[in-house]
C-alpha cells in the first residue's frame, strides 16, 4: 500500500478523519449511524442532532405538501445547515451530516405508516417469511444508478432546466395533478438547494482552497469543464444522493468511458498526467474514508456501438493509481468481452494475484443478453449499468425489492409435507410425503419452490406501490428522461422496465442434496425419505458413516459431474421461469439471479441439516460456487460446472467465486493461466467471475497475529472486508475454504 505516493501524511490523516474518528475502532456496519461531529467547525452549520430536530420542525410547514416536496425540503434543510470543511488538505469537501439523518427524521415515519397502518398484513407476512429463513424481502433503495451521462453533459442547472422543459411539455398535453406538480417542484427544490450548497462550499473554500473554490463555482453554473471538476461533481452527487437523500448511488459510473473526454482534453491543454493521477487518488481516497462496508462500485470497460472495446488510456491509469494506492474501496467491476485488450486484463489479474481481490469481471455478452430479456434494446443493453455487487440494469432501470431466497427451504417442505423442519410450522404447500419414485419427489420440490417464489413476489406486489411514498426520489428522478417526461418518480414507474429479481441462494447445497436423495432413497433404496428426514432432524447424530459417505463418495456440484450439475442447471432455470411468469406492478416479468450477499450465514442458522452432509446451522454455499470444501477437481472443473447454468437467461447475476492457491498461479505462466480461465469462462457464457488467490497458511497466521496483518483483505461476497474485521466464525470458514484449494 502506497497511498503516500499521491497523498501526503498530513492530507491522508485529514481525509481519514473527515467522516469518522480514525483513532477509534471502526465498525463498518454501525458507522452509518454516526458521523464525526468534532471534526467540523461549529460556525459552519448546525450539529447533526440539531439538523435532525430541524428537519422535523421544518416538515411541519410542509405537512400538506406532496411527499416528494417534503422530502426535497428535508434535503434542502440538510444542505443549508450541515457543517462543512473545504480545508486545503483535501481536494474534495468534507460534509458532516452524512449518516442519512432524513431517514431517522422523516422517512422512518413514512415507512412505519406503510408497514404498520396501510399494509400491515404484507409486512407481517414479510416478517414471517424472514424469521422462518425462507426469504428476506425488503424494499430496495440500494441498487439504483443515476443517468451519469446526462448529469455530466448538463450539470446541475442543466438537469433542472430539462425538468422544467419536460414539465412545460407535459402540461401542454394534460394539466398537472397534485402529485405531478409536487414531482416537478421537488426537483426544482433539490437542485436549487444543491446549487446554493455549492456556493456555500465555495465560500468556505475561499482563501484556503482556491482550486476547489473555483471548481465549485464553476459547477454551480455549468457542467464539468475539466477532469477534476468531473471528479468533484461525481463525488458531490454521490454523497448527496446516498448519504443525505437516502438513496444509494450504487455506481460511480462507467468511469473510463464517462471521464475520458475531459481527461484527454486536460492532457491536451498541458495538465500533467501526474497531476491528473493525483486528483484521481484524492477522489478514490474519499471512499475508504467513508468506509461503507459494501464498498462503492465503479466499473470499467464495455463495448462501443461499432463492437470495439471501450478500454482506453484512462482505464489503465485508473488501475495504475488504484494498484499503487493499495486500497480496496471503491470496488471495481470490469466489463469483460472478447474485445477487451489482453494487457488490460493481465494488469487486473496481476492486481488480483497480489491481493487486490476487490475486482470482479462481468461478462459483457452475457450481461447484454440478460438485459435484452428484460426488454432492453441492443443499445440499452450495451450501455447497461453494473450496480451493487454484480447486478445489471439498463439505463434508467431500477429495482423494486431486495430478495434473498433460500432454495433449501422448499426441500424441507417437500420432505415434511409442507412444514418447516426447524420451526415445525406449516410454511409450504401441504403435500404428500409418500414418494414412489424420485420424479415424484422432484416434482413436489418444484411445486414447493414455485409456491414459495410466488408468495414471495406477492409481498413485493404488496409494497411496490408504496416505494415512492416511503422514500420519494426527486434527485434520482431528475436524471431519468422517463421520469421527467411522465411526471413520475423513478420509484413510481418513472423508469425503464422496473425490475423485481429473486436472488436465489445455496444452489450447490440443493444440487448436492438432490443428488444424495436420488442415490440413497431411490436408486439404491437404502433408506426412505422419511427415514432420511429423521436423520436430518437429529443433525446426523448416530449416522456419521452415512454422512462421511455423502460428503466423500457422492458427486458434488462444482466438479463437472453430470448429476449434481444437472440439478443445479434445472433448478436455477426453473426458479427463473417461475419468477418470469409473474408480472410485477408495472407489467414487466420478474426474474431470478443467484447471489447471496452474506445471507449464507444467517440463512444457514435457520436451515436444517441438509442431505448433502451439511450440519444444521452451518453456513450454506455462496453464489454459484460449490459448497465449502466440495470443489475438489480444481478451477477448471468449477468453471465447467458453473457455465452449465443458463446465465444469459437469468435477469440478474450469477457469480462464481473461484479460489486459487498462490502456488498454482506463480510466475508469468500463472498469469496466463488465470487469463485462460477467465476467457474460457467468458466463452462458455458465464456471467460474473471473482478470483480469490489465497493461502490457508497466511490466513491462519493472520488469525493468530492480527496485528501483523492489518491490511489483509478477504472477499466476503460482492465486497471486501479487512480480515481483522470479520468474525472468527467467518475467518474459520475462509480458512477451511483455502485449505480445500488445490
Amino acid at each position, binding site marked *: 500500500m502506497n497511498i503516500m505516493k499521491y497523498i501526503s501524511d498530513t492530507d491522508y490523516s485529514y481525509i481519514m478523519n473527515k467522516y469518522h474518528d480514525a483513532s477509534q475502532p471502526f465498525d463498518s456496519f454501525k458507522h452509518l449511524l454516526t458521523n464525526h461531529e468534532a471534526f467540523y467547525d461549529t460556525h459552519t452549520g448546525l450539529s447533526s442532532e440539531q439538523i435532525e430536530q430541524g428537519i422535523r420542525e421544518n416538515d411541519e410547514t410542509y405537512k400538506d405538501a406532496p411527499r416528494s416536496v417534503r422530502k426535497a425540503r428535508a434535503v434542502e434543510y440538510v444542505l443549508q445547515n450541515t457543517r462543512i470543511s473545504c480545508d486545503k488538505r483535501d481536494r474534495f469537501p468534507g460534509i458532516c451530516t452524512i449518516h442519512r439523518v432524513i431517514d431517522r427524521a422523516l422517512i422512518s415515519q413514512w415507512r412505519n405508516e406503510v408497514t404498520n397502518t396501510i399494509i400491515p398484513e404484507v409486512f407481517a407476512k414479510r416478517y414471517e417469511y424472514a424469521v422462518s429463513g425462507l426469504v428476506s424481502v425488503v424494499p430496495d433503495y440500494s441498487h439504483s444508478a443515476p443517468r451519469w451521462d446526462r448529469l455530466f453533459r448538463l450539470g446541475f442547472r442543466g438537469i433542472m432546466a430539462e425538468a422544467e422543459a419536460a414539465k412545460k411539455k407535459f402540461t401542454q398535453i394534460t394539466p398537472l395533478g397534485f402529485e405531478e406538480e409536487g414531482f416537478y417542484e421537488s426537483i426544482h427544490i433539490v437542485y436549487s438547494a444543491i446549487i446554493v450548497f455549492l456556493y456555500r462550499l465555495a465560500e468556505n473554500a475561499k482563501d484556503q482552497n482556491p482550486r476547489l473554490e473555483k471548481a465549485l463555482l464553476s459547477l454551480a453554473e455549468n457542467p464539468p469543464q475539466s477532469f477534476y471538476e468531473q471528479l468533484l461533481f461525481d463525488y458531490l452527487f454521490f454523497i448527496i444522493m446516498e448519504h443525505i437523500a437516502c438513496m444509494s448511488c450504487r455506481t460511480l459510473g462507467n468511469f473510463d468511458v464517462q471521464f475520458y473526454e475531459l481527461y484527454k482534453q486536460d492532457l491536451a491543454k498541458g495538465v500533467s498526467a501526474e497531476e491528473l493521477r493525483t486528483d484521481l487518488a484524492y477522489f478514490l481516497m474519499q471512499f475508504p474514508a467513508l468506509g461503507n462496508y459494501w464498498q462503492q462500485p465503479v466499473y470499467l470497460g464495455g463495448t462501443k456501438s461499432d463492437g470495439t472495446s471501450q478500454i482506453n488510456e484512462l482505464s489503465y491509469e485508473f488501475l495504475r493509481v488504484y494498484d499503487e494506492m493499495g486500497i480496496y474501496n471503491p470496488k471495481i467491476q470490469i466489463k469483460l468481452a472478447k474485445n477487451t485488450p489482453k494487457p488490460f486484463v493481465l494488469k487486473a489479474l496481476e492486481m488480483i494475484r497480489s491481493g487486490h481481490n476487490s475486482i470482479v469481471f462481468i461478462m459483457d455478452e452475457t450481461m447484454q443478453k440478460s438485459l435484452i430479456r428484460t426488454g432492453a434494446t441492443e443499445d440499452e443493453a450495451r450501455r447497461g449499468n453494473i450496480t451493487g455487487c454484480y447486478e445489471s440494469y439498463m439505463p434508467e432501470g431500477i429495482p423494486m425489492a431486495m430478495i434473498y431466497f433460500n432454495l433449501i427451504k422448499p426441500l424441507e417442505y417437500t420432505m415434511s409435507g409442507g412444514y418447516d423442519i426447524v420451526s415445525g410450522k406449516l410454511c409450504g404447500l401441504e403435500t404428500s410425503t409418500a414418494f414412489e419414485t424420485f420424479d415424484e419427489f422432484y416434482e413436489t420440490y418444484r411445486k414447493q419452490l414455485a409456491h414459495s417464489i410466488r408468495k414471495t413476489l406477492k409481498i413485493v406486489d404488496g409494497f411496490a406501490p408504496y416505494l415512492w411514498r416511503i422514500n420519494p426520489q426527486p434527485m434520482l428522478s431528475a436524471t431519468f428522461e422517463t421520469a421527467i417526461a411522465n411526471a413520475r418518480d423513478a420509484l413510481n414507474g418513472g423508469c425503464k422496465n422496473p425490475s423485481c429479481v429473486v436472488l436465489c441462494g445455496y444452489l450447490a447445497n440443493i444440487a448436492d442434496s438432490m443428488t444424495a436423495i436420488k442415490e440413497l432413497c431411490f436408486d439404491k433404496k437404502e433408506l426412505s425419505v422419511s427415514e432420511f428426514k429423521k436423520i436430518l432432524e437429529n443433525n446426523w447424530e448416530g449416522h*456419521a*458413516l452415512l454422512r*462421511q*459417505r455423502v460428503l*466423500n*463418495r457422492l458427486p458434488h456440484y462444482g466438479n*463437472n459431474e453430470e448429476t449434481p450439475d444437472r440439478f443445479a442447471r434445472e433448478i436455477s432455470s426453473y426458479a427463473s421461469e417461475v419468477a418470469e411468469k409473474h408480472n410485477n406492478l408495472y407489467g414487466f416479468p420478474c426474474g431470478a439471479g443467484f447471489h447471496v450477499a452474506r445471507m449464507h450465514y444467517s440463512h444457514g442458522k435457520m436451515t436444517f441439516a441438509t442431505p448433502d452432509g451439511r450440519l444444521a446451522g452451518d453456513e450454506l454455499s455462496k453464489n454459484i460456487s460449490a459448497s465449502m470444501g466440495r470443489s475438489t*477437481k*480444481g*478451477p*477448471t*472443473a468449477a*468453471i*465447467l460446472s458453473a457455465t452449465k447454468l443458463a446465465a444469459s437467461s437469468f435477469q440478474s447475476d450469477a457469480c462464481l467465486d473461484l479460489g486459487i492457491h498462490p502456488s*498454482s*498461479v*506463480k*510466475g508469468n*505462466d*500463472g498469469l*496466463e*493461466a488465470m*487469463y*485462460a*480461465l477467465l*476467457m*474460457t469462462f467468458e*466463452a*462458455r457464457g458465464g456471467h460474473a467471475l471473482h478470483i480469490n488467490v489465497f493461502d490457508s497458511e497466511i490466513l491462519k497466521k493472520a488469525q493468530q497475529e492480527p496485528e501483523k496483518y492489518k491490511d489483509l483483505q478477504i472477499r466476503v461476497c460482492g465486497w471486501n472486508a479487512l480480515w481483522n474485521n470479520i468474525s472468527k466464525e467467518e475467518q474459520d470458514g475462509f480458512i477451511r475454504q483455502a485449505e480445500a484449494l*488445490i
Partner: protein
Amino acid sequence: MTATIFAIKRFAIHDGDGIRTTVFFKGCPLQCVWCHNPEGLSFQIQEAFYSHKCVGCGECKKEYFTAKDCLGEARILYGKEVTINELLPILLEDKDFYDNSGGGVTLSGGECLMQADFCAELLQKLKGLGIHTAVDTCGFVSKESLEKVVPYTDVFLYDLKAYDEDIHLKCTNRSNNLILENLKYLESIGKNIEIRIPYVPDYNDNQIEKIAHFLAPMKHISKVRILAYHNFAGSKYEALGIKNTLPSPLPTAEELQSAKKLLESITNFTVLS
C-alpha cells in the same frame, strides 16, 4: 491395453505451456533422493495411510475392506489400472481451457515411458483430437521407448539432474549415460525440448555450469526451467511406510537466481526459475 497410473492433475500450469492435465504413471527406474512423488516410484499398487485424516470409524477392521471404502479418505490406494477409453474423457474435459491457453495433456510420473506402448497409443489419439501433447521424462529409458512416442509428442519435458556420472549416481542411484544419449537423440531429430533441472543444495548445485556447457550447442531447446527443491512430500513417505530420503537444505532465492544467471551466461536459452 492398460496402464497403471497414480494421479491425474488438472489445471497443471508448470508441466508445459498453458493449462494442462497431467497424467502420472506409476513406476520409475530412478531413485532420486529428493523425489516428491514417492508414490510413483514403485510399479506396484500401494496403499498409504494418512493418520491425520482418520475419522476412527473402524471400517478398515472389517473383512473385505479396501482403501476405497475409507470414509475419511485416510487410506489411499496409489495405482490404478486404466484403459485409454477410460482416460480419454477425463483428459478431454478441459479441452476448452487447452484451446484458450495453448495447453494440453502431459504424461509424467514416475516415468511414463516405462509404459511406452500405452503412452504412444494415448498420445496418438490425443493428437488426432487436436490436443497438444507433452511427455515429461527422466530419460532413463530405452531409445526404442522414446521412438514410440516421438511422432505424437509436441514437446519433451526432459529432466537433467547432473552431468557428472558420479554425482548422478549419488542423486539417483543410476548412471546418466543413457539419459545424456537420449537427449542428444531428441535434439538430433529436431524435437522441441524443455529442460528441467531440479536444484538441490549439497547434491547437484555444483553441476549447473557443466549442464549449461552440455546444453549450449543444442538448437531445439525452447526453454530451461530450474525447479527449486522443496520438502513438502515428507508425509507421503510416512504414509507409504518407506524411508524418507528427502534432504534438508532448501535452496535460497539467491542460489536460484545465481543458477539462472549462470545458465543464461553460458547458453542462449530462456531460463525460468
